[in-house]
């Protein structure tokens, strides 16, 4: 399974990204990701006109043998079910140029 997380915003405002194959990860990390993918209802979250300032935005992409899931969230719309996946991938984020 291929997984990608792009994180932007936050006080810093910079873009960070990680793109990897779950083969490269530890067993407990892979399990956390698989549970996230299964438990998430992959319909696009309603844009949330929130009062939050300096929160993060997340663009998530998961590719398994059957299909590709993509969705965008903020700190306030990120579903509980996806927090483990984001929690794993956050450790691997690297700076990415915006242009």
């Amino acid at each position, binding site marked *: 399974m291929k997984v990608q997380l*792009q994180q*932007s*915003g*936050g*006080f*810093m*405002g*910079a*873009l960070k990204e990680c793109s990897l194959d779950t083969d490269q990860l530890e067993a*407990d*990390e892979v399990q*956390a990701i698989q549970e996230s993918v299964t438990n998430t209802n992959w319909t696009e979250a*309603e*844009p949330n*006109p*929130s*009062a*939050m*300032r*300096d*929160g*993060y*935005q997340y*663009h998530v992409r998961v590719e398994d043998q059957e299909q590709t899931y993509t969705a965008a969230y903020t*700190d306030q719309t990120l579903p509980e079910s996806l*927090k*483990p*996946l984001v*929690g*794993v991938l*956050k450790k691997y984020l690297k*700076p*990415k*140029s*915006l*242009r």
Partner: protein
Amino acid sequence: MTDQLVQSSNPEVRARALATVKISSALRAERQFSQAFPSLRAHSFAAEQGKDRVIYDARQTDRLKNVIVRREGQEAGNDVAVNEAYDYSGDTYDFYESIFQRNSLDDRGMTLISAVHVAEPDYRGGFVPMNNAFWNGELMAYGDGDGIIFNRFTQSLDVVGHELTHGVQSFTSNLTYYGQPGALNEHFSDVFGILIRQWKKQEEAKTANWTIGSEVLVPAATRHGIRDMLNPGKAYVDDPDLGTDPQPGHMNDLYTGPYDNNGVHINSGIPNRVFALVATELGGNAWDVAGRIWYDTMLQLTSSGQFKDCAKLTVQIAGSQFGEAEKKVVSNAWKTVGLTI
């Protein structure tokens, strides 16, 4: 106008417009009420308070209102983050009060609430320290940082002032947090964040520090802060952990992509540079003239304000409140970044 916005296809614009309608109706109702019961209205004014701070300790969880650890007037304890949140939110209150006669975020003595030691969930059901600070519409939340790249976010007075200014803006222009209005929202938070710092340290504009978040970053040769208002794009360069500061300093380099709400923390570099240029060109204390022009602009802009609207207002206010010389300095600075009025 608000009616049109209520119909807007952009959900954020629509929600804001609806909120405006609600606030307007509430104000109308309050006016009618106070005309009917003037003594009660006077009483509610008397209930307004001055500086009032509350600090919560999230205790390394994401529960922002976990435990209250300090209230207004209580002695400092041993927790540095608690003391910084308390002292710096106090400095921010004092700055707005003494320079702009503003009584807290809402100008009615609203309590300043901070949450420190805020953490993020990890994948094992635990938490990791948050590398961020944010305003959630009600309170300021500060992470402790990972200690490798980021220190605790309470450590920079300008970061605390930045977050609280998001609160001030929610009661004033309430610039929509997307695209150019969002970049202006970020810009005003940086402007008043840095002014609070310069005022506290009594630094004159020409020799002042114009860097946001210097203390938040663990020092390294490739970084000196999170944003550099005088030199956007130079706060960190080729840093192994941070990359290169993406802020433009000219309209030719305006970011138009999808990330960061269409670049709210990125394009703020353009008006930030204008403010720093104006303040250093005018000399003296940045909060005296440039700060006053920008404060009035922040109050007068509408939620959909673009860079051009901000430019026009600052030039106009500089001329009407100060004079031709100041007006010229402001319009020249906007010209330097590619915006001609």
